[in-house]
C-alpha cells in the first residue's frame, strides 16, 4: 500500500525498536527534504545563508497554509481544486471591504482592517461551506464540486474587482500580517505555525480528526459506526475554506493589494503535489500533517534553490515535473519491496 504506513507504531509495552520500522515510520519526506537542502547547499552556499532561509521560510508559509487546507480535504477522500480562486476571491473581498470601510471613515484604520480581515476569512469559509454542502448534501463528487466553485469564485473575484488590483491598503495591514517580525521571526511564519498546530490538535486530539480520516478511509463504515458523515464533511470543507481564507488574507497583506489573479493554477497543482509527495493518499484516509508541511517546504525550496542556481525557467518546469514523478516512483518501489 502506501509508503506512509507510518501508523505502525510500536505497541506501548514492547520496547524493541527496530531501525527499519523507524525508517518506515518517518517516511520518505524528511529524507527527501534533507537531501534537497544538502544538495542545494553544496551547489550554492547562499542557499543555506540566513537571508535565504529567511526568504524560504516566508515564501513557503503561504503554500504551507494552503496545503494544510488541501490536506484536510484529501484526508476525507476529497480534493479541493478551488483553493486558488478561493484565495483570489478572499483577496478581492478583503481589499474591497477595507477600502470601503476606509472610505466611510478614513481614521478608523484598525477597525477597517479588522472588519476586512474577518470578511476575508468568512469569504473563505463561505466557499468552503458551499463546497461542503455540494459534496455532503447533493453528493456531487468533490472534484466536480470544487471545479465548479473554482469557476464561480474566480468569476466573482473578477466581477468584484473589475480586473483591477485593489491597492492603497493601509500600511498597518501589510505590517501586522506580513512584514513585521517577532523576535526575528516574520509574522506570517507565526500565523502558519499557529494554523499547523491547531490543525494538528484538530486531527490528532479531537474526534473530528478521527472522523475525517474515517470518512476518507471508508465512508460507509464511518456512517455505520455512527459518524455524522455529512456534518463532518461539511465541517472539513468549512475548516479548509477558513484556512484558505486566512491564507488569502495573509497573501493580500503580503501584496498589499487585492488581486483577482492571486492563486492561479500553480497554487492548486502545487498544493496537491506537495500533499502527494508527502504520502497523502488521493483516495483519502491516509497522510500525516508534518509530512505535508515538509512537502510544501520541499516544493518551495526546489524552486527557490533553482532560482538561486540560476536555472532556466523552462528547465525548472521540467525538473519539478521529473522530481515529482521520480520521488513517487521511488517511494512506490521501496514500498512494494517492503511488502514482499
Amino acid at each position, binding site marked *: 500500500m502506501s509508503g506512509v504506513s507510518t501508523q505502525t507504531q510500536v505497541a506501548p509495552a514492547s520496547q524493541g525498536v527496530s531501525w527499519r520500522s523507524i525508517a518506515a515510520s518517518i517516511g520518505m519526506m524528511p529524507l527527501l527534504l534533507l537531501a534537497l537542502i544538502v544538495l542545494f547547499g553544496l551547489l550554492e552556499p*547562499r542557499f543555506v*545563508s540566513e*537571508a*535565504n532561509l529567511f*526568504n524560504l521560510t516566508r*515564501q513557503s508559509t*503561504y503554500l504551507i497554509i494552503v496545503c494544510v487546507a488541501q490536506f484536510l480535504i484529501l484526508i476525507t477522500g476529497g480534493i479541493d481544486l478551488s483553493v486558488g480562486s478561493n484565495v483570489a476571491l478572499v483577496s478581492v473581498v478583503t481589499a474591497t471591504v477595507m477600502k470601503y470601510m476606509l472610505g466611510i471613515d478614513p481614521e478608523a484604520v484598525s477597525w477597517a482592517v479588522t472588519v476586512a480581515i474577518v470578511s476575508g476569512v468568512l469569504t473563505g469559509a463561505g466557499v468552503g461551506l458551499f463546497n461542503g454542502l455540494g459534496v455532503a448534501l447533493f453528493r456531487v463528487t468533490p472534484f466536480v464540486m470544487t471545479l465548479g466553485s473554482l469557476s464561480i469564485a474566480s468569476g466573482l473575484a*473578477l466581477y468584484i474587482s*473589475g*480586473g*483591477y*488590483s485593489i*491597492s*492603497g491598503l493601509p500600511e498597518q495591514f*501589510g505590517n501586522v500580517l*506580513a*512584514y513585521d517580525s517577532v523576535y526575528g521571526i516574520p509574522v506570517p511564519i507565526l500565523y502558519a505555525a499557529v494554523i499547523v498546530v491547531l490543525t494538528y490538535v484538530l486531527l490528532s486530539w479531537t474526534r473530528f480528526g478521527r472522523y475525517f480520516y474515517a470518512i476518507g478511509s471508508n465512508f460507509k463504515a464511518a456512517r455505520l459506526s455512527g459518524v455524522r458523515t455529512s456534518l463532518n464533511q461539511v465541517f472539513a470543507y468549512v475548516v479548509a475554506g477558513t484556512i484558505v481564507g486566512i491564507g488569502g488574507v495573509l*497573501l493580500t497583506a*503580503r*501584496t*498589499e*493589494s487585492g*488581486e*483577482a*489573479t*492571486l*492563486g*492561479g493554477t*500553480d497554487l492548486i497543482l502545487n498544493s496537491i503535489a506537495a500533499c502527494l509527495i508527502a504520502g497523502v493518499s488521493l483516495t483519502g484516509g491516509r497522510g500525516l500533517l508534518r509530512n505535508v508541511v515538509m512537502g510544501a517546504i520541499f516544493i*518551495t525550496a526546489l*524552486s*527557490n534553490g533553482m*532560482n*538561486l542556481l*540560476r536555472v532556466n*525557467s*523552462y528547465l525548472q518546469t521540467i525538473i519539478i515535473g521529473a522530481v515529482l514523478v521520480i520521488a513517487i516512483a521511488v517511494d512506490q518501489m521501496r514500498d512494494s519491496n517492503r511488502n514482499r
Partner: protein
Amino acid sequence: ADATDNWELNVKERTPPFSEKGEWKDAVYKPLPKSDVSEKWNICVLFPHTKDPYYMAMTYGAVTEAKAKGIALNVFAAGGYTELPTQISQLEDCVSRGADGIAMVAISATGLNRAIARAADQGVPTAITGGDVTSDRVAARAQGNWFDAGRMVGEYLMKKHPKGSDSVKVVWLGGPEAPRWSKDSADGFVATLKDVDNIEVVKVIWGEPSKAAQIPLIEDALLAYPDVDYIGGIAPAIEAGIQVLKEKGKTDIGLLSSYTTPVVEAGLRDGSVEATATDYTAAQARVAIDQLVRLLEEKPVAQDVDTGFGIIDQESVKTHNRALSLAPEGWEPYFEVK
C-alpha cells in the same frame, strides 16, 4: 460626450500601409467626430483576457470610443494566453453573428491569419491593436512594437548612466515566456544594452505575471544577484518589487516598468518607481475602433499606425495625459455598448 472624447495621439504613420518598404512619418491621430458616423456599426473586440489593468485600459479605450461614436461594441475574452483556439472561434463567431468589424489583441502572431483572411473575404475588416499579427489581410493596425518597450527602458538607463560613468547591473523580470509581448520587450531591453559596457543585464527571469508569483522571484533574485542596481520588467514584477524593496528597506535599487498600471503610476508619484514605459494602452484601442469606423464609413484613414511607446518618469508623471494610457480611477468596467 465628456472631455475625453476629444483626444489626440502622437503617432507614426506608415505609407504605403503595411509595406516593408513603407516610410514612417510622424503624425497626430485624431478621431472621427460623431457627426460623421452614419450608421450604428457593430464591432467585436477580442482580447486574450480581461483580468488585469492592462486589458482594463484597453477595454476602457474601446468602450469609451464606441460610446463616443454611438456604435455598438462587445468585448470578448479568450481566457488567457493559452486559449488561442478559443480566440479563433470567437473571431469566427463574431463574423457569423454579423459583426461589421473586429478589433483585437491577438494571442498569436500567426495563428489567426486564416481566420482574419476569412473575415476579410466576407467584408469584415480586422484592426490589430496588439499581437504583431503577420497577416496581409489586416485592415488596420494601431499598436506599438513591444521591442520598443524594452528598448525605451534600456535607453532611459543609458541616458541616466552614460558611457564612462559607474557600471550598473540590472535584472529583467520578463513575465510569461511564451506570449509575444513579454518576449519582445525582454529582447528589446537586452538588445539595447548588449553593447553598453557599463550596464549589464545579469539575467532575464521568467514567471507568471501575477504579483504574488513575482514576489518570491524578486526575493530570490536579490540573493542570487546581490549587487543589482535596477530591477526592470513587467508591471506585476515592479508592483512586487515596490513591496519587497520597501520591506527590505532597500532604497538604492531602481524600479523600471515596461508598461503602466495604476499601481505603477502611483509608484511613480510617490517615488518608489523610477520610470515606466507606456504604450498608450487606452488610446491604442481608441485608434483601432476609430480606424474601423473610418473604414466602414469609407472615410480617409491612417491604416498603419505605430502608436509608439513613451517613457514616464517621476517628473513627467505630473503632466502626462493619463487617459491615453489608463482607465480613470474608479471606472467601472463594462464590456458591451449597445
